[in-house]
């Protein structure tokens, strides 16, 4: 039930990444009502203050919008959501490239391996 947190990075930042992913993937679709802080805190197994901080930061980024007295909603700004999705994708790809380069692969080999794996997945 609890989310898995890594060491050495503030938990609110790790929560932001999880929620950003959930918004970008459409698990929380645009315009949908976001769960209450306490509910989310319980799901993640974290302190409500920590969850509140993560939500406030996401609001600053524009991904969440507070409608006075009714709660928080996912933005309807499709462009912002797709930008968030590409940012997250770019992060994963950078990490992948980093570890493949560590393995000693050249850029050509990386491309070939990725294409190969893509075909296998299909």
């Amino acid at each position, binding site marked *: 039930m609890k989310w898995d947190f890594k*060491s050495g990075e503030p938990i609110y930042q790790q929560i932001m990444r999880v929620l950003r992913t959930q918004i970008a993937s459409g698990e929380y679709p645009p315009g949908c009502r976001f769960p209450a802080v306490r509910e989310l805190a*319980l799901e993640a197994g*974290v*302190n*409500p203050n920590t969850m509140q901080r993560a939500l406030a930061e996401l609001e600053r980024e524009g991904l969440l919008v507070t409608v006075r007295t009714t709660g928080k909603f996912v933005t309807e700004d499709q462009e912002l959501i797709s930008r968030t999705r590409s940012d997250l994708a770019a992060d994963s790809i950078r990490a992948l490239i980093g570890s493949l380069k560590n393995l000693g692969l050249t850029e050509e080999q990386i491309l070939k391996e990725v294409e190969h794996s893509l075909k296998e997945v299909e």
Partner: protein
Amino acid sequence: MSVIFECRDLVKSYGNVTALKGISLQLESGRIVGLLGPNGSGKTTLIKLANRLLQPTSGELRIAGETPGVKTKAAIAYLPDKDFLPDWMKTDALLKFYGDFFPDFDRQRAEEMLMSLNIPSNLPLKKMSKGTREKVQLILIMSRRAQVYLLDEPIAGVDPAARDYILRTILNNYEENALVLISTHLIADVESVLDEAVFLKEGQIVLHKSTDEIREETGKSVDEYFREVFRC
């Protein structure tokens, strides 16, 4: 948020052993704070002083502006580190007992939690497993609408599933504007619920910081950092 728990130069000696060597600490309401330290570092002594089960040798301690006494007992929900209720008592008697003693006890909430655990109302504490007994005691404490929750080792000695239950119960039930102080040496299990950590070492505070600050500044989890500070 205002300071609700405050001590200044607090000293407690037992004969020629000094358990607390002049502690000064301010904690605010609305926070969940971990009181972290190895065995014998003074955690239980501090919590007992706050509950007036012990008298300070010197120094000052104030909770919600009052020296520990009758008034503070109404404001503090205290979970001791060992079984503290008569073991022949059945759950329905315990509910009545708590209702009689504490005006802020929410009996309905306690009943709901007991029911969701399928604990029969006529079961005495001594017939329960250790894990169930710990859960029942915690349910009684967390059903109070207190200003300060002092939880001494709430997760020690129970299995990981029971630990999750206990932490969830704390998160689910504490009053939003209350201070929750959790003493433990099982840091990995609690660190994601803590706002702040207080490290106690040989009767002195060696660190008091927000857990996010610790993670950011040290690049380590609170648990890893703790192991480093307290390496034997």
